[in-house]
C-alpha cells in the first residue's frame, strides 16, 4: 500500500513535469509562430527586396555623356568637339557576394596581381566599404584584361566588369576654365544629390560647364537585369532599362578666338573675356594658369590634383569670375560717367596737369601722373589716361557719388554667368573703412578712388558687364557660355538659350557718346594706340593697377585693357573685350597686344 502510494506520487510528479515541458513547447512554438509572422508578413517586403538584390546583379549601362561643341557647330559637317567620350571598362567587385572572406581575398589578390595594384591597400579599402555596394577596383581597363577575367572565372570568382566610357577633352588645357571636368561623387556630394537620382558610383561635373549643366549632359543610366546564382553564374539576362544618353551642348565660345586669346596670353597669369554685348554671348573665356582636365580624370590622379591644389599660382582659380583686382585707370570711365551724369560736367572744360597733384592738408601730399599732360579736357584725359584730371574730378564729386555710380553701373553685382563659383567686385564705403581700419575716409582716399586705386575691387567679368552697358546704351544681358542644347544624335535642338536682360541702366546718350569718343581717342592717339591700325574702329581704355605700393614703380602691377569695336556700328555687330594680366608691366604693354590679336582673328573671321 505504501509502495503503491509512492508509485502514484512518482507518476503524479512525472505528469506535472511533463506538463511543464509541454508549456515550454507551447511557448517556443508560439515564439516561432510570431517570428514567422514578423519575417514573412511584417518584414516580408524588405526581405523580398533583399532577396531580389541577392539574385539581381543589375549592371548599369552608363548613359553616354553629352558632347560639347564650339559655336560654329552644324549637324552635317566636321565639328570642333571640345569634350567627348571614349569606350573603356571598369573592374568591379561586390564583397557581399562572397560566402567566405578567403574567397574574396583570393579573387582580389588575383585581380591585383593582374592589374599590378597594391593588394593590401585595396583589400583594406574594400572591407571598409558597405559590402553590398559595387566597389570599383580599377577604372579604365583595356578590353584584353576584361577578356582575361571573363575567361578565368575560377581564378577571378565574382569579379565583374562594366562599360564605363572615359571623358576626353581633345584640347586639354585650352578650355579647362570653360568646360571644367568631371569626377567621382564625394561623400558630401552623394548625400546632397542622392535624392535627385545620383548613384554613388557615378560621375558628376566638378567645375565649369560640366558642373553647371551636369543634369543636361549626364542623361539617365539604364541597366541590364541579370539573374545570377551565388557563384555569379548567369541564369537569365534582360535589358531592365535602356539608357537615355545625355544632351549635347553647343557653346557660344568660338574655337579660333579662344585659341588666339589663349596663345596671346602666353605663360602670363591673367584672363581674357570676349563677349557680344548685344546678347551676352561669350565668345572666348581664358584664365591662366590652367590645368589639363584629361589628367585630372585619369586614374591615379590623386598626385596630380594635390600638385595642382598646392600650386601657389592657383591653376584651379577661374580668374575671370573668381578673382578681383583694383580696376585702376579703367575706373576713370566710372568717374567720368558720374561727373557727366551727376554734375552736368562740361567735357570741354580743361584742367591743367603739371605731372602731379598736391592735396592740401596738415601735411601736403603729392599724387602723381605718369607724365605731365598740360591742359586736357575730358576726352583727352580719357585718351591719355591723365590722373591729375580725374583726381580733381573725383574730389569735386566726393566719394559717396563715386560709390553710388560704381554700384549703379553693376561693378559689384554678380554677372549671373552660367558657370559656378562666381564672386562679385567690392565697393568700399566710409563706414566700411572706419570699421576695417578704424580711420575715417580721407580726401586722399577719394583721390585714389577716382582713378581706381585703393580699396575698390572688380572681377574681369564685372568689368565686362560695365563695358557692355556702355556699348549697349545701358542694357546689360546675362553673359552666357551655352548657345543651344541638342539631342544626343544632334538631330534636333532641345533648347536654345535666349539672351536674358540682366539690368537696364538709364544713362543719357550724350554721356555714353562722350565716353565712347574718349575711348576711341585712346585707340587713335592715346594709350592704346597700338590698336589704331586695325581695320575695325576700336575703342578702349588701359589700366595699370599698382598693387603693393602706390608710389614706387615696381613690377607689382596688374595690366588691364577694356575695349570694344567697331566704334560706330549698331550694337549687334559690336564685340567687347576685357584683358587682365596679373603683374603685367603696364596695360598698354601687356594687355593691349592680347586684344590686338583677338580682334585680328575676329576680323579675319569676318565677324564685322
Amino acid at each position, binding site marked *: 500500500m505504501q509502495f503503491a502510494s509512492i508509485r502514484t506520487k512518482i507518476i503524479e510528479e*512525472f505528469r506535472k*513535469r*511533463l506538463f511543464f515541458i509541454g508549456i515550454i513547447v507551447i511557448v517556443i*512554438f508560439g515564439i516561432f509562430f510570431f*517570428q514567422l509572422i514578423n519575417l*514573412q508578413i511584417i518584414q516580408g517586403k524588405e*526581405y523580398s527586396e533583399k532577396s*531580389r538584390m541577392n539574385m539581381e546583379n543589375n549592371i548599369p549601362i552608363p548613359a553616354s555623356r553629352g558632347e560639347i561643341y564650339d559655336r560654329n557647330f552644324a549637324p552635317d559637317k566636321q565639328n570642333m568637339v571640345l569634350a567627348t567620350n571614349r569606350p573603356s571598362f571598369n573592374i568591379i567587385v561586390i564583397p557581399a557576394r562572397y560566402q567566405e572572406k578567403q574567397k574574396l581575398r583570393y579573387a582580389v589578390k588575383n585581380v591585383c596581381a593582374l592589374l599590378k595594384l597594391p593588394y593590401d591597400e585595396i583589400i583594406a579599402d574594400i572591407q571598409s566599404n558597405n559590402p553590398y555596394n559595387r566597389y570599383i577596383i580599377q577604372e579604365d581597363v583595356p578590353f584584353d584584361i576584361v577578356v582575361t577575367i571573363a575567361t578565368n572565372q575560377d581564378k577571378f570568382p565574382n569579379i565583374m566588369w562594366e562599360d564605363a566610357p572615359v571623358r576626353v577633352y581633345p584640347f586639354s588645357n585650352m578650355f579647362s576654365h570653360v568646360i571644367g571636368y568631371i569626377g567621382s561623387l564625394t561623400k558630401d556630394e552623394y548625400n546632397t544629390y542622392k535624392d535627385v537620382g545620383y548613384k554613388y558610383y557615378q560621375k558628376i561635373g566638378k567645375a565649369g560647364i560640366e558642373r553647371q549643366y551636369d543634369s543636361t549632359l549626364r542623361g539617365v543610366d539604364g541597366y541590364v537585369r541579370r539573374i545570377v546564382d551565388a557563384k555569379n553564374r548567369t541564369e537569365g539576362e534582360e535589358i531592365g532599362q535602356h539608357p537615355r544618353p545625355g544632351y549635347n551642348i553647343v557653346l557660344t565660345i568660338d574655337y579660333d578666338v579662344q585659341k588666339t586669346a589663349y596663345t596671346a596670353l602666353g605663360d602670363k597669369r591673367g584672363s581674357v573675356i570676349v563677349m557680344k554685348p548685344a546678347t551676352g554671348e561669350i565668345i572666348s573665356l581664358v584664365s591662366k594658369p590652367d590645368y589639363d582636365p584629361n589628367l585630372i580624370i585619369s586614374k591615379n590622379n590623386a598626385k596630380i590634383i594635390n600638385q595642382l591644389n598646392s600650386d601657389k599660382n592657383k591653376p584651379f582659380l577661374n580668374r575671370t569670375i573668381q578673382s578681383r583686382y583694383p580696376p585702376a585707370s579703367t575706373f576713370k570711365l566710372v568717374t567720368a560717367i558720374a561727373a557727366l551724369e551727376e554734375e552736368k560736367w562740361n567735357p570741354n572744360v580743361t584742367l591743367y596737369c603739371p605731372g602731379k597733384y598736391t592735396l592740401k592738408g596738415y601735411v601736403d601730399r603729392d599724387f602723381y601722373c605718369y607724365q605731365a599732360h598740360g591742359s586736357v579736357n575730358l576726352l583727352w584725359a580719357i585718351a591719355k589716361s591723365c590722373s591729375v584730371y580725374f583726381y580733381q574730378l573725383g574730389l569735386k564729386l566726393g566719394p559717396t557719388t563715386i560709390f553710388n555710380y560704381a554700384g549703379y553701373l553693376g561693378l559689384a553685382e554678380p554677372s549671373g554667368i552660367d558657370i559656378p563659383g562666381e564672386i562679385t567686385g567690392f565697393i568700399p564705403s566710409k563706414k566700411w573703412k572706419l570699421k576695417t581700419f578704424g580711420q575715417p575716409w580721407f580726401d586722399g582716399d577719394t583721390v585714389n578712388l577716382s582713378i581706381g586705386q585703393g580699396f575698390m575691387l572688380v572681377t574681369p567679368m564685372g568689368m565686362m558687364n560695365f563695358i557692355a552697358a556702355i556699348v549697349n546704351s545701358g542694357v546689360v544681358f546675362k553673359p552666357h557660355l551655352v548657345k543651344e542644347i541638342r539631342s544626343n544624335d544632334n538631330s534636333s535642338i532641345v533648347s536654345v538659350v535666349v539672351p536674358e536682360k540682366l539690368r537696364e541702366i538709364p544713362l543719357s546718350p550724350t554721356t555714353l557718346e562722350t565716353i565712347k569718343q574718349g575711348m576711341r581717342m585712346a585707340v587713335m592717339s592715346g594709350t592704346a594706340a597700338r590698336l589704331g591700325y586695325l581695320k575695325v574702329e576700336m575703342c578702349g581704355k588701359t589700366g595699370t593697377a599698382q598693387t603693393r605700393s602706390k608710389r614706387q614703380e615696381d613690377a607689382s602691377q596688374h595690366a588691364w585693357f577694356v575695349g570694344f569695336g567697331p566704334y560706330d556700328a549698331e550694337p549687334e555687330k559690336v564685340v567687347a573685350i576685357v584683358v587682365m594680366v596679373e603683374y603685367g608691366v603696364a596695360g598698354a604693354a601687356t594687355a593691349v597686344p592680347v586684344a590686338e590679336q583677338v580682334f585680328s582673328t575676329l576680323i579675319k573671321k569676318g565677324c564685322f
Partner: protein
Amino acid sequence: MFKTIRSAFQEYDVNFLFAIIVLVLIGIITIYATGFDPIEKVNSGLYKKQLLWFIIGAGCMFAVSRIHYRLLGDYSLYIYLILLLLLLITTIFGAKIRNTRAWISFGFFAIQPSEFMKLACIILLAKYLELRQFDIKRLRELLIPFAVIGLPVLLIYLQPDFGTAMIYVPIFLTLLFLGGADIPQLISIVGIATIALFVPMMLTYLEWSGVSISGGIFSFLKGNELLYIIAGSLLIISIITFILYFFFNSKIYRAIYIPAFIFSSGLFLSVLIQRFLKEYQKRRILVFLNPDLDPYGSGYNVIQSKIAIGSGGIIGKGFLKGSQSQLGFLPEKSTDFIFSVIAEEWGFIGAVIVLLLYAYIIYKGFTIALKAPDKFGMLVAGGITCMIFFHVIINIGMALGIMPVTGLPLTFLSYGGSNLIMSLISVGILINIDSRIR
C-alpha cells in the same frame, strides 16, 4: 505476413503515422527542389537517396514497433556499449568528411553512430532512472547518468561534431527532470554550466570586437591566477560551511555553501572551457547573438536564411521558384536550412503547416508518455519526444535567426540517412508503447 501488417495498422494511431509520413514526404520533395540546378537544369538526385533511406527507415520502424519496448530496456546496456564502441572506432578511424570523423563506412553505405547513440542513451537512461526511481533525488545517483552521457559527448566532441554533442545536453537534462531528479540539483548543474560558459564567451566577445581589455573585471577574468584564487577561496568557504552544516544542520550554512560551490566550480570549469573550446566554436555562439559580427561566416548563413524565409511572404514563391535556395545563396539547404527552403517556396502557409505537424507529433508523443504502462515507457516516450522537440526548436530557431547556428538536422525533413532512420526507429518505439496502452 499481410495479416500482421493489417492488424498492426489497426493497432496504430493512423493520424500520428500520417503526420510523420507527410513530413518525410515534404522533406523529400524539398530535397528534390534543393537538388535542382536551375542553370545546368539537372538534379543532384539526392532525393532518391533520401527516398531509399525512408524505405529502409520505414521497414526498421515497422520492425521495431513489433518488438515489445521492455525488451529494449533489457538489452539497453548492450545496445549502448556496442554503439559506444562504434562511436570510438568512428572517432578514431572514421572517414573524414568536411573535417569531421562522424561517419563509419560499411562499403556501400555509411552511418553516423552519433545519431543512433542519442536513442541508445535515452533508452539506457530511462532504464536506469526506472530502476532508481525511488532514490533519484540523491545527488550521487546522478553520477552514472553523467557517465552514460559524458562518454559519447566527449567522443562526438572529439570528432569534432560540436552541434551533435551539444544536443545531448538538453536531452539529458530533460530526462533527469522527467525521471524525478531533484530540481535544485538540476538548477545547480545548469548554473555551474552557465557560469562556466559565460566567462569565456565574454572574453571572446571583447577580444573579437576589439575592446582593449584592461583593468577591472576583465583583467580579473583574463588573468587565470586571480580566477583560481577567487574560485579556490569560494570552494574553501563552501567546504567549511558544508562541514558546519553537517554538524549543526542550520539552514544558513546551506544557503552559503551551495551558491559558493556553484560559483567556484563554475569558475574552475570556465578556465577549462576557455582552453577546451576552439576559438571558432566560441565565435559561433557569439555570431548567433549578433550575426552582424561576421557577415561573411556563420552570420552569412543566418542572414541568407532570414532573407529566404522573409521573402517567402504569405503564399511563398512556389515550387522550384525560391531564388534564395535555387540560386545557392542559402547554404546547407537540404540539411540545416531545409526549413528556410520550405518557408521560401511555400510561404507562411507552408511553414505554419510544418510547425503544426511537429506540434501534433510532439503532442502525440507526450500523450503516449503520459499514458505509458510503466515508468520506463514514460521516460522513453518522453525522452524521444523531447529529442524530436529539441531538434526542431534548435534547427528552426536557427533558421529563424533566434537560436545559434549549430548544424543540427531537422528531424524527418533534413537530408541524411542516419538521422532519418534513427528518428523512424524512435517513432517505431513510440508506436509500440502506444500499442501497449490499449
